[in-house]
């Protein structure tokens, strides 16, 4: 589904290479996790995949179902089925969560040539999805992420994902800032969406989330590269020993 080949990225403003040849292949229906030290380029990878400005791709490729992601506008990538749950979800004062969700959903439908969802169907859908994530009606009415706690913001990201039903979900540290119960809710939300057609790339620092969301493959990223890939046991190793041994192996 997602094919990343030798992806090299530098900052647009300065000559600083961040990704130095990332290779990653995620097949449909699988869950991959990326772990790695702070500053190793995990968020950058997620931003470049979803089309954020400020980066220049200097080499390599990224395709979603064979389509060149890097050529698309961010909204086109979303319509193609890519979703990024932000490490730092953005507050948008004055725009209601509901308006935001409906605008996004309808925009994607339109891009795919589908009719708009009716107001009634939308309400039903959003209530059902919100309930599962224990997001109450009051939170839905509030402006996007404004005044939300850290954990509420992360749950709101998962709500958006549940509403938009993307095929390729990138979760950037969705577990950070979550209490134990919220982590469970988020994991349940993710697991509910797991299925043959849908893939996940879960960026995390902690093994705990991976207890709930069992990844098929775990990658270790360091200094802009995937330096090691393995099964879920790799995450346990990181949890126990940190990155020092893994980094030493490469050198």
């Amino acid at each position: 589904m997602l094919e990343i080949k030798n992806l090299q990225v530098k900052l647009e403003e300065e000559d600083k290479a961040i990704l130095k040849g990332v290779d990653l292949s995620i097949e449909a229906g699988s869950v991959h996790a990326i772990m790695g030290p702070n500053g190793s380029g995990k968020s950058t990878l997620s931003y470049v995949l979803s089309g954020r400005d400020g980066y220049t791709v200097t080499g390599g490729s990224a395709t979603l179902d064979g389509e060149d992601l890097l050529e698309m506008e961010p909204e086109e990538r979303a319509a193609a089925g890519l979703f990024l749950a932000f490490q730092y979800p953005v507050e948008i004062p004055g725009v209601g969560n509901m308006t935001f969700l409906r605008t996004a959903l309808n925009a994607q439908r339109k891009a795919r040539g589908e009719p708009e969802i009716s107001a009634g169907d939308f309400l039903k859908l959003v209530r059902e999805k919100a309930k599962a994530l224990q997001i109450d009606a009051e939170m839905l009415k509030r402006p996007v992420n404004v005044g939300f706690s850290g954990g509420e913001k992360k749950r709101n990201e998962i709500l958006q994902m549940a509403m938009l039903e993307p095929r390729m979900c990138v979760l950037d540290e969705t577990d950070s800032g979550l209490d134990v119960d919220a982590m469970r809710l988020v994991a349940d939300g993710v697991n509910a969406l797991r299925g043959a057609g849908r893939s996940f790339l879960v960026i995390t620092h902690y093994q705990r989330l991976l207890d709930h969301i069992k990844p098929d493959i775990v990658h270790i990223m360091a200094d802009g590269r995937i330096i090691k890939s393995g099964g879920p046991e790799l995450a346990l190793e990181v949890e126990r020993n940190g990155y020092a041994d893994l980094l030493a192996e490469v050198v």
Partner: protein
Amino acid sequence: MAVPHKSDATRNKATQDRLGAIDLPEGGFSGAARVSAMKRLAEMGMPVRRDEYWRYTDPADLVRAEAPEAVVFHGTDPQLFGQVDRVTLVFTDGAFDPDASDDPSLAGVEISRLAVADKADIHWARDLYGVLETRGQTPINRPLAALNTAVATDGVLIRVTGRAARPVHLIYNHQSPTSDVMLHHCIKVEPGAELTLLETGPAAARLNMVTEVDVLEGGRFHHVRAQGRDHSRRAVTHIFARVAKAAQFKSFTLTVNGVLTRNEAVIEIIGDDAVAHIAGAALGDGVDGVFHHDDTVFITHDAVGCESRQVFKKVLKNGATGVFQGKILVKKDAQKTDGYQISQALLLDDDSQFLAKPELEIYADDVKCSHGSTTGAIDETALFYLRSRGIEREDATALLVLSFLADAIEEIDDEALAADVVARLEAWLARRKG
């Protein structure tokens, strides 16, 4: 009383030309006020660009005897606030249109018109007409308001004696490309009474409007207006408000389009525990020609424990210009004043500009006053966030514009009126994508 300006050739000529073209109405009860206004006007002279108060806005087109032409805009928008149960009074190019207007009888409210009532002696109106305007000439000259007091031919006189059953809606149509209109409204909100005043429409090729609002003890006045979509219209408006003990004055103005708009508000808080809020949202696109919008506000606190808020937002693109001059004056005995002022511009490109002059002048020692002014562009992070959810760039930009304007819109207490205003904003944004 206003200080006469230093005489100079430009001003003298502008003043002579303008005053020479005046045909002073006799004006029954308002007669004395008109004569006095003429006298004041001769002393202070017409404004010129060199005046400090007109530094950012050239008054020439508002001053000269002949109104510049303005193409009449034919929109297909439904009437703003059309779904609200209200009493409408319609003016077309300044002339009252009785056939298009509702029967003005309304419980709790007495409505008459300047053109009609001028022949009668309406005591309350005589004590208001030109009175707040005159007070508002200190410490700053506002010659165009004095001109209006002298010359205005019509307007509404509203005395609110109870809780008005419905809002009063003044609709200003513009049909003649050369109409030069002066309207003067007087509104007196008696103690404990309450009125919502709605105003919509461009009114004329050139409009000079003065509204005097006297809110007595415990009275409430809500005001929501929208200044019409005509691109080439010009307008100078003055609101002079006096707010008594425990009274409330709240005013919101939406401006989209217009070559030149100068909205002045002069608010005097004279009773303890009173509240005055004034807000504006302006959207200007220079692609149709010039867009120049100026909000000039002067709020005087002269009582204890009062609150004032100024919230002004402007969205500018394609070489549009926004101006904000806002002052809070807190007099010596106005302790426990809570004064707030924010003016912000969102520039959608590099060609547009926002000129702001926020001022505080405080003589009391126990006050809380703050002011802030910002000029910014669309937040790229927020834009990316919205686009990453599949929302196209232009739609995402529109959402962020609404987000930017939200604080100003929130100043409209009535949710239905606010929703109508938001719908207008959305329509404007939808028309001006890209």
